[in-house]
């Protein structure tokens, strides 16, 4: 798929922007705080509806204004689609409205209209960082491509919040109510685990292949789903009954400790190199190579599953890599239709035909192609 136009109004530091990006590789070069990451963030929001950055949501809207708009035209397999994301500031916080071809749609429907794979410096912590980072990695990919994942995930989160509040004692203890929330957890959590299991298996295969190519087969990289609730077979029945049994088992402890103790909100992804834990025993270089293999795999799995190449968004990440790794990464995702890369300086070793744009104070200009 390809973004043919992106229009911003009062988004971050952009008052107005109307840009027609090129197919292939778009390199956005600029000093810090000029707006290059903001542009990438806006493109990502057309795919995921959410910012990949942390921080206050109200900062998404230019200072002193209460309405921002991100609009984009994309060419997808089904034709041309026009996407809109409107952000409004109100006393009760930020509100987002989504449109597809001018029709207002709910977030669940907007999500994944165009698919994006983002790679930001924080992703470099994927191996050594906390499990929440690896769950986030799975969530972002699944929410965009599996219809139903987002709904199951939200349902799970809601039931979990209610159960936690009940265990904490925000209302009188009620076994009947706990049973109702546990039932909702098993129903939605089973779907979440099932889809995560499939995704990790697919990503693991791709990542292992890429990694073996890069290390000329000297090292073996393994990616394994590490569900908090172990199950025998990757079927809804097996997962569902394992989860229900586990909840019964931990019930007395959950009540004593006043907190939830089991379920996919505690999942992880195990990353292994030659049978040893990468986080514990891998060198920094080995960990970084593994992260790149995972991102390449994420990209390829999304592409395989949807039959369309997602947009590839690399925010300030090539400069974090040495030239050989950066080149290896771009070669490995060679099948992209369109990619956006931000950098403070023109990265070395760019493939021929890259389109370069410079950003100065929220104004984007094409440079002569290199």
């Amino acid at each position, binding site marked *: 798929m390809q973004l043919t136009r992106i229009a911003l109004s009062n988004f971050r530091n952009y008052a107005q922007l109307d840009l027609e990006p090129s197919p292939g590789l778009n390199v956005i070069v600029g000093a810090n705080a000029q707006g290059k990451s903001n542009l990438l963030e806006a493109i990502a929001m057309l795919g995921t509806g959410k910012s990949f950055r942390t921080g206050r949501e109200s900062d998404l809207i230019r200072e002193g204004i209460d309405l921002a708009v991100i609009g984009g035209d994309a060419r997808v397999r089904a034709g041309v689609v026009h996407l809109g994301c409107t952000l409004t500031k109100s006393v009760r916080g930020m509100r987002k409205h989504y449109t597809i071809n001018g029709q207002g749609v709910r977030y669940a429907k907007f999500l994944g209209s165009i698919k994006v794979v983002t790679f930001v410096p924080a992703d470099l912590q994927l191996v050594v960082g906390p499990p929440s980072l690896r769950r986030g990695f799975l969530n972002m990919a699944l929410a965009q491509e599996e219809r139903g994942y987002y709904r199951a995930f939200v349902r799970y989160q809601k039931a979990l919040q209610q159960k936690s509040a009940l265990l904490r004692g925000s*209302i009188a203890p009620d076994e009947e109510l706990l049973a109702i929330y546990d039932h909702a957890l098993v129903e939605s959590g089973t779907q979440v685990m099932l889809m995560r299991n499939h995704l990790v298996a697919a990503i693991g295969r791709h990542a292992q292949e890429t990694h073996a190519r890069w290390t000329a087969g000297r090292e073996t990289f393994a990616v394994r789903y590490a569900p908090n609730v172990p199950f025998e077979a990757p079927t809804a029945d097996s997962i569902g009954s394992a989860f229900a049994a586990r909840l019964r088992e931990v019930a007395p402890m959950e009540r004593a400790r006043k907190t939830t103790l089991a379920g996919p909100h505690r999942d992880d992804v195990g990353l292994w190199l030659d049978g040893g834990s990468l986080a514990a025993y891998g060198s920094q270089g080995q960990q970084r190579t593994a992260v790149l293999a995972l991102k390449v795999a994420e990209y390829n799995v999304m592409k395989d599953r949807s039959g369309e190449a997602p947009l590839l968004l690399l925010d300030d990440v090539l400069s974090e890599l040495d030239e050989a790794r950066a080149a290896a990464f771009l070669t490995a995702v060679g099948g992209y239709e369109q990619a956006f890369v931000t950098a403070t300086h023109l990265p070395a070793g760019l493939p021929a035909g890259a389109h370069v744009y410079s950003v100065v104070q929220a104004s984007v200009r094409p440079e002569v192609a290199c």
Partner: protein
Amino acid sequence: MPASGSIAGPVQALINEFSKLPTVGPKTAARLVFYLLNRPRHEAQSLSEAILAVKDKVRFCSVCFSLTEEDPCALCTDERRDRATLCVVAEAKDIYAIERTAAFKGRYHVLGGLISPMDGIGPAQLHVKELIERIGEEAPAEIIVATNPNAEGEATALYLSRLIQPLGVSVTRLAYGLPIGGDLDYADEITVAKAIEGRRTL
């Protein structure tokens, strides 16, 4: 807002009051205030009286917990209403939605919200105990739980059905379905799936 001197104190005070209302932002609030400034005094007077009357005269029905001027309310005292079916709703406003259809001839019971521990609302904070007492006294044949099909509505409906079923009363749930005039194409998967679940023979 800074004391710029451009907006008089009472004007700002009313803007602040309107801004507290649901779905009203500061801009809409200001628009309402300037509209009122341009209307004759008696209109403002009747608006303020209507607001106070709501607070002073309207109270909760002691039987069904709907809003009423007379206690018990007109619905509870209407002998033509069917005593065999009792429709449980979250809020009094839901009664108006169902009454508009004229499809239901039974009586109502307002819970006063939905179960949501994270908001501090459990069965004890709702009129659940009173519902059980009513079932004991009035012995209806069927309880229709008409809560919204969202997570809280579902949990509340399940909770009530587990509570009521042992009393030997049948508990039903509103059927979910496709909006009339809507397109099957445009409905989301859950709506379609629920509509299939709730299908009927023709």
